[in-house]
Structure formats: structure tokens, C-alpha cells
């Protein structure tokens, strides 16, 4: 009974998205042992906060056991998978010059050498130095990334760093409005505003443009690193529903085996 109310807002979206995963709605409706997490819906119109209603958040997404090790793995993956080191050193064959034998083998009283660019020489090649480009790419398993997202969202909610708003409409373009709002509500210096789509209302875009530590993101851009970097996460109702439905889709999909196969570049 609790859970049927819980999923009213989400089921529609769920059923739209999950044509091939028709068992999800049935499964989610059966979970009477999980209590939904209830959160206030606040407003952004005025500096003082007004509570406009309540929203139920699915416990699989917002009440997951916070796995700190999985969160760490996700943050490390995000930092490294795109990183390519372009440090480069020349090997003795690549250094300019060094083709001729500098002096005869015997008779000079000098030590024997065959090239002035051998690694023993000053200005010679480097033997085992960095060779560009060195990629640090790897993929985390699919469900590790999903678990990272659910853990971080749960952590944000549990630590009172998650706020849900009706929409991102504010009355003025002034950035001082945002500063005062955030300060009066104790929202933490850095705030991440998440909406459902990437086209945002004009006022908030202009207001947060000047402030470096307040940024806007669409729902599909949400990630573990950003959620940890920003002190407060402010999501619109639509964004929250979108994220919940996408994560439930990921958690309940039928072809999980396919998703957990080893990553092959050509098969993506």
C-alpha cells in the first residue's frame, strides 16, 4: 500500500521506458518490506524556503547501503579512464645524430663507444622513459557504476545535502539573489543544480554564470565525482523522477549478463 503510492509518479515513466522490461512494475509493486524515503519539495522563488509538498523517493536508489569502497572505485575510474599521459622521451635511435662511431675502438686510450647518443652519454637517449601516448583507460563493471550512483545519492540524502525543488525558476537575473538564498538556507558554498533536460530557464543560467561554484547540469550528466565535489545537490522533481526510473531500469534489466561482459571497443 505504501509502495503503490510510492511508485505512482514513477510507474508511468517506468512503463514508458521499459517496454521490454515489463516485469519491473510488477516486481517493484511487490516490495512491501522497503519504506520509501520522503523528502520536502522546496521553492527557489524566494530567499526564505517554503515547503510545497512531499515526494516519495524509491529506497533502492536513495536508501542503498552506502558503499564507500564502491564510491572510491567510481571516483578513481572517473579520474583515470579518460587520462592519457603525453609525456615522451626519445630513445637512442630517435635522438638526432649518433650514427657514426665517435672514435676508433682501440688505440685512443679512451673508453669504447659506438654512438654519441647512447644512454650513457649526456644528451643521449632515455632507455625506459615515458612513451606517449600512454593510456590509463579501463572500464568498471556496469553494476559497479550503478551501485556507485545509488550509494552516492543515498549518502547525499542521508547527510542532508540533497534538496528537491519544484523547478529552477527564479525571479531575477542577479547573482546576489542566489548567493543570499544559498547563504540563508545554509546550503553549503558549492551547489549543483540538476534539471531533467539541458535547456534551463534564463534567469538561473545568468545568475549562476558568474558564480564558479554554482553550476547547472542535466540529469544525464549526474556523476559520482560531481556529487562529491559539490557540497549541496539541488534536483528538480522531474530530474529526480528521471534518475530514479533510469536507475531502476538499470537495476532490474533482463540482459544483465550482456552488460557485465568484458568491455570490447568494437562492440560498444
Amino acid at each position, binding site marked *: 500500500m505504501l509502495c503503490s503510492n510510492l511508485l505512482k509518479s514513477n510507474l508511468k515513466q517506468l512503463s514508458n521506458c521499459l517496454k521490454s522490461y515489463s516485469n519491473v512494475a510488477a516486481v517493484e509493486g511487490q516490495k512491501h518490506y522497503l519504506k520509501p524515503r520522503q523528502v520536502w519539495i522546496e521553492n527557489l522563488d524566494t530567499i526564505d524556503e517554503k515547503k510545497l509538498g512531499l515526494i516519495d523517493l524509491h529506497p533502492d536508489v536513495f536508501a542503498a547501503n552506502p558503499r564507500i569502497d564502491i564510491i572510491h572505485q567510481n571516483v578513481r*575510474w*572517473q*579520474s583515470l*579512464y*579518460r587520462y*592519457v599521459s603525453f609525456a615522451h622521451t626519445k*630513445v637512442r*635511435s*630517435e635522438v638526432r645524430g649518433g650514427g657514426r662511431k665517435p672514435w676508433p675502438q682501440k688505440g685512443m686510450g679512451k673508453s669504447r663507444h659506438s654512438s654519441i647518443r647512447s644512454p650513457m652519454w649526456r644528451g643521449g637517449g632515455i632507455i625506459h622513459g615515458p*612513451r606517449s*601516448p*600512454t*593510456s*590509463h*583507460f*579501463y*572500464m568498471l563493471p*556496469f553494476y559497479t*557504476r*550503478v551501485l556507485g*550512483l545509488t550509494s552516492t545519492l543515498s549518502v547525499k540524502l542521508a547527510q542532508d545535502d540533497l534538496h528537491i525543488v519544484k523547478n529552477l525558476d527564479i525571479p531575477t537575473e542577479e547573482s546576489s539573489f542566489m548567493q543570499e538564498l544559498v547563504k540563508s538556507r545554509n546550503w553549503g558554498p*558549492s551547489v549543483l543544480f540538476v534539471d531533467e533536460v539541458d535547456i534551463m530557464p534564463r534567469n538561473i543560467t545568468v545568475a549562476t554564470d558568474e558564480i*564558479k*561554484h554554482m*553550476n547547472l*547540469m542535466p*540529469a*544525464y*550528466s*549526474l*556523476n*559520482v*565525482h*560531481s556529487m562529491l*565535489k559539490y557540497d549541496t545537490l539541488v534536483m528538480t522533481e522531474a530530474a529526480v523522477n*528521471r*534518475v530514479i526510473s*533510469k*536507475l531502476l531500469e*538499470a537495476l532490474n534489466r533482463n540482459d544483465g549478463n550482456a552488460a557485465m561482459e568484458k568491455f570490447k*571497443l568494437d562492440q*560498444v
Partner: protein
Amino acid sequence: MSFVSSIVNGLKAWNPLKVPVRFRYHSEKIAKGPTIRRYGFDDNILQKGPLPKVDPSYKKLPMPEYRPKDAWSTKRALFGQNDYIDILGNDKLHPTKTLYNLPSWVRGVSGNEFQMLIRKKKIFHHRAYPINRPTKWNELNKRIIYLYKFMNRHTRTGFSKQ
């Protein structure tokens, strides 16, 4: 006979009232202080006390000026933005497909230098690279030949996949 007489003479010289003694009471010895050893040795290394004042005209060692990085520049504020786009957005768009700023043969691959060079050669050998960059192409090929010999003859290659 002679040694017996020498013993007797020694015994006569020994007077029990005159005994050689270093100190009467141990506390007197302690009160004197520690025995000076290595007398006249001058230890030049400062063991205690304030540091000596250095002449300001002395050149200080160079240290770079500390410049903290801007933690909220656009790049850093939005780092990791679309890494979960295949979960939260389009199923078909894998994060490796968003690596626009990387060289094309490096996107979504990892390996040692030998594997990366072979991949680069496979991608570019029928394009303009050998004609536009002949020296670099030659270096690439030389490096592949050298690495083949080094990796297969001088390092452990791991288990065979047969």
C-alpha cells in the same frame, strides 16, 4: 731462595694504614661531576642554543612561488560530467564515444607501448601518415621491430592462449 726473600720484602713494604683510594664517598665523586674525557677537543657542531644569525646578503636557495590551482575553473567544476550517460541517458552512447579530445587510436583502449603502436600502425598505414610524416613513420616501424624483439625474447610473455 731469592723469590722467597722478595716476597718477604714486599710484605714488609705493605702497610695496611696507607691504602690508595679514588674517593672516600661515592657522592663526592658524583659531586665532582663527570670525568673529562678527550680533554681539549673542540666540538664545532652546534648541539643546542639558538641558530646563528645569517648575513641577509647571503643568497637564499630558489623556491618557486606557490600558485594554488583554481578548483572551480570550468574544467574542474564540471569534471566527470557525462561519464554515466549510458546509464542515465541514452543506452547506446557509451562514455568511450565521448572522448573527443583524444587521438583516435587511443580512445577506449589501453595497453603497453607495443600494443598501442601496432594499433596505430593498423589504423594509419593506408592513410596519409606514411607520406606526410615519413621520419615519424620510419621511427614507428623501427620501434615496433625493436619492441617485438625485446618483449618476445627478453621479457616474460605470459601464458600462451592456445
